[in-house]
């Protein structure tokens, strides 16, 4: 059997790709949240700075050629309402300080644009955000540009942004873990039909070549169709082979019967003992060939029937007695007595009677064949917890010491029976029948005396 090498795993591949996507999305989420929150925080600070600057700017007026700025309490107190930040301000008229911190740096081009300008700078050991709001103010005869600068440190902002970063990172990790778990579920879910199909194919017996009827997702349908086509082809090919064998056996058996009949007629008419001996050899060979052909036929039938068992309730004892009856003429020739023991009523088995009879006949056939003259064959039927066991014990030459594993192989024969003609198909048929019924065949030495014990174990009905 060819060993299939696994190369990579579909599930792992799917999972890894989903996780990769989740990781990328998580990072994107983290990054987006961070940037947006940072922007929001900065915008909030800018807005409040400009509100403060506006309040101061509106409180500025010129009086008798002098600029007066009455900084409203709220202008600075509002800056303290959000976070405990340091606050600086400065009011300039044409770059000359009117009031406030006169070393507070003014953002470049604040005065020219006439619009609020924001800048970030280091002032008094801390990073500050500076808002500059320019405005025209008429002082006496001339117009000056009054610029209100309001600055606030960003320590709170840094703390907030750190907090946001941590929260965003937590969200990202959480998102990743969640999507990881979901990916796992999704992968398993996606793989389920495939697993189901694999299992259903795996569950089939080695003889089951019927089409796989499991419904499958679209993607698996071509595979399933190919599989079914393949199986159909295999099945047809097998059937053809069996037919061929059956046909061949039949074609062999018919002329053999003619050979045997003609030989017997000839035997009666010849006088010379050496001629008689030759003819007897011919008859024996014809018998043996016929028997082999019969077994080939049996085997082909077993192979065919075991694909589709016709099960019914059977009493093993009755079945065994039927077989014993049919085989006793052959046994009588060698003065072999066959006894059958076991319960009459129970020992019920569900199975194909023709197959089981065939199996039992093959066993008894073997027993008779290998038993010495004037010996005994015991058929014992016993019941286990959920099994029925049939032991066939003979007083023959036993199994020998060689390897026993090939006894049930096709055309496999024991090492100690080379002198007796046999096809090597008998035990193969038994084995196939028994395993088609979910049972087993065991070959051991007869525990009572020399000989063989063949045990069939079948599940009870």
């Amino acid at each position, binding site marked *: 059997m060819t060993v299939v090498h696994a190369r990579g795993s579909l599930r792992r591949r799917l999972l890894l790709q989903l996780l990769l996507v989740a990781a990328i999305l998580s990072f994107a989420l983290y990054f987006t949240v961070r940037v947006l929150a940072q922007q929001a925080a900065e915008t909030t600070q800018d807005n409040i700075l400009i509100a403060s600057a506006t309040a101061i700017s509106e409180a500025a007026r010129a009086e008798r050629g002098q600029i007066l*700025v009455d900084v409203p*309490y709220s202008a600075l107190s509002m800056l303290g309402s959000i976070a405990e930040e340091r606050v600086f301000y400065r009011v300039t008229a044409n770059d000359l300080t009117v009031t406030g911190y006169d070393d507070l740096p003014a953002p470049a081009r604040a005065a020219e644009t006439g619009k609020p300008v924001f800048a970030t700078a280091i002032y008094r050991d801390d990073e500050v955000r500076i808002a500059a709001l320019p405005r025209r103010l008429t002082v006496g005869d001339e117009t000056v540009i009054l610029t209100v600068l309001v600055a606030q440190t960003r320590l709170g902002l840094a703390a907030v942004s750190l907090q946001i970063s941590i929260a965003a990172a937590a969200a990202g990790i959480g998102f990743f873990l969640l999507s990881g778990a979901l990916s796992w579920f999704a992968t398993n879910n996606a793989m389920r039909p495939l697993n189901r199909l694999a299992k259903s194919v795996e569950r089939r017996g080695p003889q089951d070549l019927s089409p796989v009827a499991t419904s499958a997702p679209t993607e698996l349908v071509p595979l399933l169709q190919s599989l079914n086509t393949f199986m159909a082809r295999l099945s047809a090919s097998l059937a053809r082979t069996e037919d061929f064998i059956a046909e061949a056996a039949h074609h062999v058996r018919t002329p053999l019967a003619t050979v045997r009949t003609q030989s017997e007629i000839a035997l009666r008419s010849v006088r010379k003992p050496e001629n008689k001996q030759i003819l007897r050899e011919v008859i024996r060979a014809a018998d043996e060939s016929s028997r082999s052909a019969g077994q080939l036929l049996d085997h082909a039938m077993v192979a065919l029937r075991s694909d589709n068992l016709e099960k019914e309730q059977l009493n093993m004892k009755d079945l065994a007695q039927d077989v014993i009856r049919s085989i006793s003429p052959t046994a009588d020739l060698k003065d072999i007595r066959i006894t059958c023991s076991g319960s009459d009523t129970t020992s019920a088995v569900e199975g194909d009677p023709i197959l089981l009879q065939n199996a039992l006949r093959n066993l008894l056939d073997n027993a008779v064949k290998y038993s010495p003259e004037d010996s005994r064959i015991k058929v014992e039927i016993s019941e286990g917890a959920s099994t029925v066991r049939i032991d066939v014990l003979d007083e023959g030459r036993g199994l020998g010491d060689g390897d026993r594993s090939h006894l049930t192989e096709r055309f496999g024969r024991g090492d100690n029976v080379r002198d007796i003609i046999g096809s090597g198909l008998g035990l193969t048929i038994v084995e196939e029948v028994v395993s088609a019924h979910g049972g087993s065949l065991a070959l051991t030495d007869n525990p009572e005396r020399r000989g063989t014990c063949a045990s069939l174990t079948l599940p009870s009905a």
Partner: protein
Amino acid sequence: MRVSYIALGLIGWIWVQMTSAHGFVAEEERLFEVDRPAATLNILSTADLSVFAPLVEAFQARNPTVEVHYVTASSSELMKALYEEDAEFDIAISSAMDLQTKLVNDGFAERYVSTETASLPDWAKWRDRLYAFTQEPAVLVYSKIAFEGLPQPTNRDELIALLRENPDRFQGRVGTYDIRESGAGYLFATQDSRQSESLWRMAEVMGRLDARLYCCSSRMIRDVVEGRLALAYNVLGSYAAAHLADNMDLGILQFSDFTTVMLRTVLIPKTAGNLDLAGQFVDFLVSEDNRDLIEDLTGLPAIDPGVLQREAAFRPIRLGPGLLVYLDQLKRRTFIRAWLNAMVQP
């Protein structure tokens, strides 16, 4: 003997050095000595030595190897010392919340955080650098004799009406802070102006009565006690309470419209040489366990959120950048001019 002479000599030398190194004007100065000094804590404070000495000694009782050098100055001199002269002090205590705020805002204070500071309510601290340890309401101190026969006012409007209707009785006998000189006075006045317009009417009425202007609470209280004043407006209630027991005629009135509550604050200047010791002293002042001790030893009401809840009219001055507004040169000039126009009438 010899050792102690040397020690005395050394102390004297340090004292001279300290004094001579001052660019700012110190008012009082005292070295709280210990037997085996291991470290010296330099305190610059606006609180009178007599008020604060017991507290310093209580601190030393717990830290017996700490020598304390206690220097008092006015709030503006304290500001000058720390803001302009980089004078080396481990602790700065002031009732001028605006100046303390400016020191913190402009980066002249060291950050300090401990479990003790964490126990303070939010309104009693700012930026982990400024910590309040007393809450002192600004009250009206009056002489019961001078008010005899008159209904007792409960709010500013009633007081204004009373003053208007009895000019003879109050002429030259009302006093308040000179906000040009007193940081606390300026702070109270500006907070009054924030709360209501009555400040300006009050100033006008007082101006018409030839109000007398004072540098500090203690002198106003003395003049009320000695009968020179009928009432003093915006006096630190904590100081007045100390005199209440001795003078049956002295009355204290907390206005029901609003009562400004000043917070006395402590900070560790950037110039502090001994941060650990300074931190210990801050903890000592702000600790929840020491609140009763502070009240007992100094007579100053300690931080107590419960009082603020009970007294609906109490408005503690809010620490924060809002306090910087009234320090603006232009704003201050304008405010003082307006106040003087009302208060000092030709």
